[in-house]
């Protein structure tokens, strides 16, 4: 069997988590090459549609990264992200996708090490869960 290489799509806000990931790079902190980031201005921008699209097309995990509570560059966008995240986890379970495949993390611009740790840990978790059940294309009609 081919080795399972998890694919995680990360939606990260420009001000905190994307900058934190930049810092991980400039500090040369190493983490698994499983994640691909999509930069948005705020975690509040992340539509449920994006997450469902990612899973529908076979992503093994999705990470939403925003500023810590109270630190949102746009006052409260991260709270919007939190609300959608909680609802989406329930929705995913209904759809037969393990809710643990969706994660929301608050990572500040100064937390490069934490970003790397989270990617490491999340990758491990996904590896244990195995490939997304949607990889087979069973639910691609969605």
């Amino acid at each position: 069997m081919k080795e399972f290489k998890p694919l995680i799509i990360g939606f990260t806000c420009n001000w905190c988590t994307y900058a934190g990931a930049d810092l991980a790079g400039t500090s040369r902190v190493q983490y698994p090459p499983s994640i691909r980031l999509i930069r948005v201005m705020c975690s509040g921008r992340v539509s449920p549609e994006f997450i469902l699209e990612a899973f529908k097309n076979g992503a093994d995990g999705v990470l939403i990264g925003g500023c810590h509570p109270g630190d949102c560059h746009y006052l409260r966008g991260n709270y919007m992200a939190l609300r959608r995240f909680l609802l989406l986890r329930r929705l995913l379970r209904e759809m037969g996708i393990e809710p643990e495949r969706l994660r929301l993390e608050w990572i500040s611009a100064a937390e490069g090490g934490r970003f790397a740790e989270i990617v490491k840990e999340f990758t491990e978790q996904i590896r244990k869960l195995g490939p997304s059940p949607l990889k087979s294309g069973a639910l691609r009609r969605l």
Partner: protein
Amino acid sequence: MAQGTNHEDSPRIGVYICHCGLNIAGVIDCEKVAEAFKDYPGVVVSKDYRYMCSDPGQELIKEDIRKYNLNRVVVAACSPRMHEPTFRKCIAEAGLNPYLFEMANIREMCSWCHTHQREAANEKAIDMVRMAVEKARRLQPLETIEVPVTPKAMVIGGGVAGIQAALDLADMGFKVYMVEKSPTIGGKMALLDKTFPTLDCSICILGPKMVDVARHPNIELLSYSEVTSVDGFIGNFKVKVLKKPRYVKEEECNACGACTEVCPVEVPNEWDMGLGVRKAIYRPFPQAVPSVFLIDKDSCIECESCVEACREQGRDAIDFNMKPEEVELDVGAIIVATGFDLYDPTKAREYGYGRYPNVITNLEFERLVNAAGPTGGVVLRPSDGRPPRRVAFIQCVGSRNVSAREYCSRICCMATLKHAHQLKEKSPSTEVVVFYMDLRSFGKGYEEFYRRVQEEGVRFIRGRVSKVLENPDTHNLVVRCEDTLSGEIVEMEFDMVVLAAGLTPPSDAEHLQKALKISRSPDGFFLEAHPKLRPVETHVPGIYLCGTAQGPKDIPDTVAQASAAAAQASIPLSAGKVVVEPITAQVNEELCGGCRICESICAYGAIAVVETERGAKARVHEAICQGCGACSGACPSGAITMKHFTDTQILAQIRALTVGRW
């Protein structure tokens, strides 16, 4: 304007993979990545080059735009937070709209963090470029928005950093509001006796600057005031400041001091670190600015003797009914100069601070040696008021210690050398021993000062002190330490021990961080936008840093940084206008059902649903919209989207990673 596929005007994309010397090419095969896009749909040209941001690199892009009639450009290099502006400018110079550019961050997010996984890094880099190309294909030209700038600044903090920044800006002709939380400006420098290594009298060099602040026609001083909230953006901040009640009218008080003389209440004086006393109605110190008294309501017994005394002087300055007052300020730029707090040495229990009266901090020593301090400048030990004959200094208390603060506080070595010199100067026979790990005397004239203090007979023992013990009868102290140069354990008795406590961020840094939406580094100090190239800017345009708010530093560095912050702040203030990114929300009225979800979600009130001929429709006020996209994340009909981060663009990025992969 409809967003979506109909706008993909036969894209002609140029793809450029930067080697960044070996930063990228050392891990990623850039040639191979470029090769992978040679026949990619819509890509006209795909190249790799050693340094894309260099002048020839940028020329290469410009030439190709003309030669191949490119209408989209993708550069795979460093973070867009670093060089997106560079390349936007580059393509604009070749006649393209600057927003028809996309960057793939294959350095910070690929080669630098997957250094030892070349194959996987290559795959990831190709994925990242594919995402960028798919987004670029769907990019639309945008016009930037220019907004006017309020030509005023606010400086938070009235220590030497804030004073320097405020004076510089005021001298340039800008109105400056200085907000200081204490009843006086001057900060920590006003408490010092001398400054190293020149031994200038601290208040003699700072005092005139404090007076300049009070007298400057362009500076409005809000002392005893705190910033409660900050809204808006560069050029257009709206700040709320709470003025705490002094219970003494600033305009009435002439600082005669009659009130203090009659006040019957005495409490420990925080300006003397609690070593001396002050009255309930007081002025922090004689050089305080503004030179106005205030009442400490927590200790005041409301006997009103001071009211009588004030009236006898023909004035009526005291008002017990004074209330806190909220002030609103409009400013274009903000400078954060909030300084530091001293590390709390009670946390270093082995040194006995707080339990042994003769163990004091460096700042307490500063007050003891200061002529304006509680002992009139005579160093006396707290337990019995006798002059100490043997004094130990313990370095790095709280600093350079992974279980306390990892960083070096940068000023304690020199402060201790200064204190040692002052003891020797006042009484050459005093035995002075400094326990240190490394002595860092790196500034101009500092090493020379170190040598001078050595020659004065101060003894230096290299080692971290393990314990300070007290003889309860004499209150003398025994310092135990391994002399790491001789390898021997030393135990020595002293009359007084001075702890060189380090610097920490002030306790209210978190509140200010949240109000300003700026970041702090793991050490807790405010984070600059770039450690080398943007040392006084923050990630938030229009907010600048200086002094120890940004990290421990001495007075010369603080003053230099304050002038730098003022110079940076003056850029938008003197330009009179700033260009704001045109990344705002956009409504497709065909799809909008007027459900008002976006209106309720917008944190800025930038969306209003209005009645039109075709029913209720959401409208965006572009000047108010900050571009977060929370509305488009919530819109149930996909009617509202963000320019430059449209649904179509983001969905295309997702598909670029997934479709056809399995």
